[in-house]
């Protein structure tokens, strides 16, 4: 530190050197700023072009029949009703199964097992699960549910999605609970409250915003997943709400239609992609306004 200080010349001693140094710093600043702006601009350009393509091609494929008719063979003017409903069911059920488990594991890690060996092991496994390719999760569920039961089912799809939800919720819940200052906990304990009351009434309340955001992130993530559904809920061409039978979903339908030979199927794939994007966007916006309103 002292060496650095002695290098910097004082203004009175060496005006020119000081000015040169200032110019140098400004130049470096400008260069880094330009690079940052370029990177931001590039990112925005890609995002904007994706959205523009999605809008221009998706709106062309949108019509009332998309929402009122199930998928039909090429040329029969089908819609996406079964896929939309299938995605809603599987996303909601997947989140409903995965969220409580994730919440409890996250709470355990943050409140009960901060530095224990078991806690570290659980955290490590959960982080691995978080970065596992989702196709592996699909194959896992295929092996333990689909293959033994002898059939693809909507329920297997829900399970696969729940397995994706768990590690996301674990991570956000733990991180958010850890942000709560220990003084707050000490104050609660000091008032004589049991630990479970501290967690449920104080910690959850203080970390609510972050935890809910984590759950919504998980919902947004699974609503667009294709890979875990390919070998679990398979897809269904017909209207079916049964969880024991194959179930349609938007991502799988998009995957199949986008590469087909038939123009009406390709148009439907774009419409479906637009719907998913809009839904994820809506979930995010609604969540943010809700949270802001409560504050």
């Amino acid at each position: 530190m002292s060496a650095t200080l002695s290098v910097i010349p004082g203004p009175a001693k060496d005006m020119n050197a000081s000015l040169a140094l200032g110019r140098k710093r400004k130049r470096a600043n400008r260069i880094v700023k330009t690079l940052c702006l370029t990177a931001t601009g590039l990112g925005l350009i890609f995002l904007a072009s994706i959205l523009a393509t999605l809008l221009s091609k998706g709106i062309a494929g949108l019509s009332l029949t998309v929402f009122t008719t199930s998928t039909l063979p090429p040329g029969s003017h089908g819609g996406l009703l079964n896929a939309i409903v299938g995605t809603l069911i599987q996303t909601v059920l997947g989140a409903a199964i995965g969220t409580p488990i994730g919440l409890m594991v996250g709470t355990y890690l943050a409140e009960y097992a901060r530095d224990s060996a078991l806690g570290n092991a659980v955290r490590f496994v959960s982080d691995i699960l978080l970065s596992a390719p989702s196709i592996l999760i699909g194959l896992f569920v295929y092996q333990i549910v689909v293959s033994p039961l002898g059939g693809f089912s909507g329920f297997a799809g829900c399970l696969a999605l729940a397995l994706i939800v768990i590690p996301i919720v674990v991570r956000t819940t733990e991180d958010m609970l850890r942000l709560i200052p220990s003084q707050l906990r000490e104050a609660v304990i000091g008032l004589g409250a049991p630990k479970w009351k501290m967690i449920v009434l104080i910690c959850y309340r203080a970390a609510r915003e972050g935890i809910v955001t984590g759950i919504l992130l998980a919902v947004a993530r699974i609503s667009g997943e294709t890979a875990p559904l390919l070998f679990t809920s398979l897809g269904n061409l017909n209207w079916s709400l049964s969880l024991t039978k194959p179930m349609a979903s938007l991502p799988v339908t998009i995957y199949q239609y986008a590469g087909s030979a038939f123009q009406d199927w390709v148009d439907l794939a774009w419409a479906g992609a637009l719907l998913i994007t809009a839904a994820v966007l809506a979930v995010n916006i609604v969540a943010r306004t809700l949270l802001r309103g409560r504050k």
Partner: protein
Amino acid sequence: MRLAATALALGLGVFAFAAQAQQITGAGATFPAPVYTKWGEAAKAAAGLELNYQAIGSGGGQNQILNRTVDFGASDAPMDPAKLESGKLLQLPTVMGAVVPIVNLPGIASNQLKLTGPLLTEIYAGKIVKWNDPKLVELNPGFALPNLAIAPVYRADGSGTTFVFASYLSAVSPEWKEKVGAATSVKWPAGTGSKGNDGVSATVANLKGAIGYVENAFASQNKLTTAQLRNRDGKFVSPTEAAFVAAASNGDWANAKNFAVNLIDQAGAASWPIVSATFILLPKDPKDPARSANVRKFFEWAYKSGDAIAKGLDYIALPAAVKEAALKTWSAEIK
């Protein structure tokens, strides 16, 4: 909390409303998917059966029926007889289709360019690399073929189309048969890979000088530039329905084990040389006889009333005698 409760209520409501229609689930080859789904739509009205066919690829179809996760599997490439035996599966044909070469050459319209099997082999082996190669010019005297590099495009994914196309190349070239052979995916000596029929067509459409192979339904639906081929009788034929039917009617079904008929490079002046059948795979020991009966009801309906639909989508219907033989085998093998 309230959100979770609402979600749960919605989920339970969905259970209650679950429809209990008679459903058949099939999975496999992408090639017959359009005709199977169209058959499904018509059979729903006519026979009260709901077909859910998922195009996951021929290999996937074989695996899923071996694991008994679907009611029937579908495959473009006939299954290995030993595997059929050990998996207790019955293999039956449903429709036939053709594979056609597509090209992207400035100034050349559909069915103007003439090609032969041996030339295709040399192109895909990387031996003929320019469109103005003397061998190509000699075949196409009417056109000024450009000094343009040939870019062969093949299927990067495992595909029944590749199996059929490579079978044809193997049939016309002993060297190809020995060095490369025929399978759902082979080691291509030259060219670039693309995923799916759509990938191959997109690459060919965007790359001047490219050549590829796709299923006929794909080429005609997307109005791709196809080429003529010289058949076994030495005649040049365009990929038309008449040429496909001519080849299909020549198939030696009577002597084909497991109906795995060879329709490649058939004799006949009008025959298109790359035609093949597509198959369904059925468990000989169905767990659920009611569902097995529904599958039979569906394909019986398709054999009887599905020809017009198949034709409308550029497929070729099976000869009546073959359908009869298939149903007879079905009755004998699956009780």
